[in-house]
Each structure stands twice: as structure tokens, then as C-alpha cells.
């Protein structure tokens, strides 16, 4: 049985093919302004028995192809459980939203929290701040790790934070210190969300922001715990959807 999971996120689309419990193929593309076309291109030439869609674009996909869907929350739970069977807590920070999920003993979602309508504390926030400070997204976390003294950034709103950063730059502050301050504010927000669902180890960190080494380190420091990061942290949702094998949530 060959099953496909596709995670149509706000920034990227991931596709995974699972056969006999093994991942045999995985692909990724930017969502762009026309995610359905992008998703269609990813699917081209991929044969499968069942497909399940997740991510914010799942319903568009459902309408276009009449496929079952599952929310990102359940998809992440299933995917995380497959990668690390003991996992108790999941933090997912994606391009436009972030979520904290606690699992019960059997790997099912016990409780979850999700950011509301604004993109504060998500990948989009980091992306805009990196740009404001002249970093590439890849180097942003690395730069922040070089800071001597992190600045205090009080705004979580992307628009306000950008003006705050601009005024810090104008004051002649080292951009690495500003970068660290921004990373800390993202971690603070993630922590308050995690605490609302209870933080139990092992903790899995997934989503595009899990690629950021500074966020990972700060999370471990403040939680006083090791966090697990999958080899490809953006693929957890697609994996979960593939494992569901054509069943909806």
C-alpha cells in the first residue's frame, strides 16, 4: 500500500510517500501565491493508493481532488508519534501559525493551543525581522548566537517590532544583540503556549522554525530539557497525513 500525505502550509508544501511503513519519497515546494498549482506540480508522477491532505490549504485541496483531510494538529501528533513513539509534547512553529500539542499515553491529542489570527511569534515574524536586520533567514539564528548581550524587545506584533528594531538600529545597537532579543521574544511566546498545555518530556520541536539553532538552544535553556528535532522538521505533518492512509481526521 502506497500512501501519500501532503501538507499545504502558508509558506511551504511538503509531500511524503510512505510504503510498508517506510518513507520512500519526500518533496517540498514553496506555497507561493497559487498553492493549488504548486501542490499539483508536486503530485505529478507520484503514484499512490491513498492520499490525505493537511495544512491550511487542505480544504482547497479537498474541493479540487475530493480527498480526505486532517488538521495539522492531528497530523503532527501522528507524525511525531511515528518518529518518536514516546513523545509527550509537540511544539510546532510554522510560517504563519504556531501550536503546542500535548499527547496522551497512546499518542492521541490530549490538548492543544494555537496562536490566534496574528502571526506574532511565527516563522513569518522571524523572516521579516531577519530582513530588517540584513540577515538571510539561514544566518539569522547563527547571528543571534554570536550576541554578547541580548536586547529586550517588547513588541510581539510584527509591525511594532519592526519599528522597535529600526529605532534600536538607529541607536547604534549591535544587530546580533537585537537578533538575540527577537529570538528570545519568540521563545517566550512559545513557552507561554506550551505551559498552557503542560510541558512533559520528551518534547518534539517541529515546523520550519525548528531549523533555527538559536531558538532550539533558547528553548532547551529555558525549559531545562532536551528537545527532539526531527531530521526534517517541516515534514512531520505530511508524514502524519501519509500514515493516516486515506483516512480523514
Amino acid at each position: 500500500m502506497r500512501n501519500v500525505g501532503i501538507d499545504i502550509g502558508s509558506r511551504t508544501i511538503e509531500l511524503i510517500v510512505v510504503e510498508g511503513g517506510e518513507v520512500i519519497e519526500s518533496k517540498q515546494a514553496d506555497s507561493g501565491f497559487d498553492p493549488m498549482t504548486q501542490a499539483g506540480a508536486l503530485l505529478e508522477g507520484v503514484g499512490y493508493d491513498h492520499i490525505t491532505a493537511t495544512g491550511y490549504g487542505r480544504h482547497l485541496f479537498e474541493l479540487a481532488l475530493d480527498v480526505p483531510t486532517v488538521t495539522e494538529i492531528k497530523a503532527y501528533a501522528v507524525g511525531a508519534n511515528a518518529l518518536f513513539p514516546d513523545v509527550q509534547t509537540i511544539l510546532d512553529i510554522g510560517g504563519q501559525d504556531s501550536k503546542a500539542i500535548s499527547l496522551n499515553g497512546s499518542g492521541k491529542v490530549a490538548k492543544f493551543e494555537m496562536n490566534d489570527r496574528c502571526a506574532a511569534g511565527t516563522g513569518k515574524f522571524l523572516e521579516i525581522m531577519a530582513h530588517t536586520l540584513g540577515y538571510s533567514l539561514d544566518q539569522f539564528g547563527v547571528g543571534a548566537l554570536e550576541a554578547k548581550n541580548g536586547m529586550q524587545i517588547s513588541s510581539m506584533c510584527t509591525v511594532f517590532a519592526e519599528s522597535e528594531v529600526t529605532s534600536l538600529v538607529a541607536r547604534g545597537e549591535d544587530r546580533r544583540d537585537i537578533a538575540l532579543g527577537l529570538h528570545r521574544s519568540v521563545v517566550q511566546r512559545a513557552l507561554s503556549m506550551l505551559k498552557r498545555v503542560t510541558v512533559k518530556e520528551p518534547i518534539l520541536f517541529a515546523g520550519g522554525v525548528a531549523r533555527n539553532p538559536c531558538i532550539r538552544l533558547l528553548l532547551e535553556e529555558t525549559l531545562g530539557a532536551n528537545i527532539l528535532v526531527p531530521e526534517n522538521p517541516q515534514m512531520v505533518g505530511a508524514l502524519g497525513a501519509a500514515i493516516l492512509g486515506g483516512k480523514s481526521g
Partner: protein
Amino acid sequence: MSEDYRGMWENLGLDLVAHDALLEVLGTGYGDIYLAQNDRPEGMGYFDFVMSEVHGLRIKELMDEKAAGRKVIGSFCVFVPEEIVRATDATLVGLCTGADFATDEVETLLPRNTCALIKSAFGFKLGKACPYLESADMIVGENTCDGKKKSYEIFNELVPNLYVMDLPQVKSVEGRALLKAEYLRFKEAVEQLTGVTIDAERLKSGIEIVNNKRKAIHRLTGLRKADPVPISGLDALLANQISFYDDPVRFTESVNKMCDELEQRIEKKEGVFSEKTPRILISGCPMAVPNWKLPWIIETSGAVIVGEESCVGERGARNLTDDSRDTVEELMEAIVDRYFQVDCAIFTPNPDRLEHIVEMARHYKADGVIHYGLQFCQPYLMEAMPVEKALEEKNIPTLRIDTDYSMEDVGQLKTRVEAFIELIK
């Protein structure tokens, strides 16, 4: 609308262009959300008709009442005792508060971070689009939350006939004394407005009319215990919403008639959703017409709503007024007793509400509770976290939603609601 009401609306001072635009949005929304549902009870036809004439025929009826010398009183809250209004043959109507309207003008008078319900009340006044408000001979504001009581100071500048009722915030002997004093003062004000002196017979008759309406709503809510559920949460909410506008006697008859049909449905195991559909109880802020956003998301995501712990729902309709006494004084005491039990979040502390949520979750066999809080509504948002904690301790899954009347967060809400339904399945 089956008749041309433009002259009537013009006489009421409505802004016809803005009002047309409102009716169009309302009509489209109603079609997409209500008429798109499957297997609705036939009895909902009555409520569809009332909704289609909510600014038309119903307003004409109110104008006819006024022409016959009877009064119309508008209210924003379930603490305004309808029994007293009815005792003078006046009509109590709920005022428009369920949609964003003329927000740019509202924000010249109120801070942006005011809850959507208060902003809406102002928007309908400033935008001249609520015929209920314009036809009211008296508008009752009530000191519930800080937002409402401070905003009435400003609302008073916009309308010539605002009457502000004070309300207690603590369920103490002194709190009850305040409520009683305020209800006696209200009775006098209504008597003065209408020129009718309320005697025991009139008050008893007012109590009977309102109790009958409540009994019909209780009957309807009781039928939602069945699985499959014979009526959608959206439709039951609509009946509750219409109870604030419609003629109470006709409303009572229509609800009872629909309940006969629902009983037959239950007997035949017919429902609007299949058996074992996940069942959700909504708890929190009131949902006034046309605020159907969250129920619509829930019921198009694979669950059914089996109850509303809300002012437009069980909090508003719970408990009858004892009509067994014979003097005005005793009947007024009974009215105070009945309303003093309302477990609004303005009370501190407010343990009754929590008990009622748990009781309702069990009674209606809910698989989970969705707590609905309007953004910037401090009383309900403050209670949301303790409510969530207490329900989870009793193993009742709970989802907290903070939202407003705008549609911009529908995608995120849908993800949350769907994930919650996956969790309780």
C-alpha cells in the same frame, strides 16, 4: 420582504442605502448558513419567515401597536424583566448588536478595543440601521460589565430615551436588595411611560406570557438530548434569537408546534446529523442575530451543537417566575428571585455558572465544550480559564475561542474547531 416597507423605514429615520446593504448581506448570509442546511424541521419555516421579515412585517406590527397606544421598549440584556413590560401591554424587543456596522464612526466615540457587541449597538444607531432601536419608546441600558455601563454614558448623547438600570455584582442580601429596588423603579418608569398601573392581575398575566415562552424554549432544549439530534444547533440558536424579537404568544405557539414535529422525529430516530455525531455545548458570550459564525463553523466541521450556555440560550431562559402569589408586592419579589439567579459573569464570585456548564454538558451528553468569548469581553474571558480548568478536571474536553464578528479568522477557527472535533471523536 413581501411588502414595500420603505416608507415606514424612512419615517423611522433609517438610512435607506445603508439599510438596504445590511439586508442584502443578512439575506445572503442567511441563505449560505441557514438555508444550506440539510433535513431541517418543517417547523423552522416559521422562523425563516420571521427572519425574512425581521425588519419588515415585525416592525410594521410594532408600529401598529404604537398606533393603538401601546409602547415598545428596547433592551440589550436578559436582566430587563419582560414580565413588567408585558403587564402594561407593552412589547419588549432585543436591540441590534450582532454585526459590525459603521465601525469607522463608532471608533470616533469608543476605544477600538471595545467588545464587538457594544460597538455593534453603537454602529446600528450611528449608521441608522436598526428599526427596533428607532421604534422604541424607551431604551433600557443596564450596568452589567464596565464596557456597557461606561458606553451608556456616551449612548445617552445619541438617543433621547435611554433609561439606565443599575445591577448588583454580588449575590448577597444587599445585592438582592439593589435588584429589587431597581425593578421597583423600573416598574414605575414603565407605568409612567405607558400610563398603565400594574395591578396583580396584569402582572400575573405578564408572568404567564413570559413563562409560557420560557416553557416552550425549555421543551425545545430538552429535545436536543436525543441522539440523533432532531434539530441543528444553528436552528435552535435562531429560535432563541427570535424569542427576543417576536410576539411572545405567537412565538410560544410556533416553538411548541415545532416541538411536536421534533418529538415525532425522535420517535422515528430521524435527525439532522447521523447518530454518534460528536456533540458540542457552547458556553460563554451571547450570540445576537446575525452572529452565526462559530456555530456555522462547528456544524460544518462534523459536529452538532446540543446546547448554548448563553444569554441567548439557557442562561437567559432558565427558571420560571413563580406566579402563585396574589399581590403585586409578592409577585415583584418572585420576579426578583427569578432574575437574581441569572449567572452572568458580571457577578463575583460566580460559581453557579460553572455548575451549570457541567450540568448542561452531562444533561445534553456533550462530548466537549467550546467556550466562546468575545474579544475584550473581560467578564467572560476572565472566567474562560477557570472554566476550562474545572471542566478538564472533570474530563470534559474544552476549547477556548476568543473572537469577534469579523470573518478574517474563519480559517484559523476552522482548524481549531476541526482539531477539537478530532480530539473528542
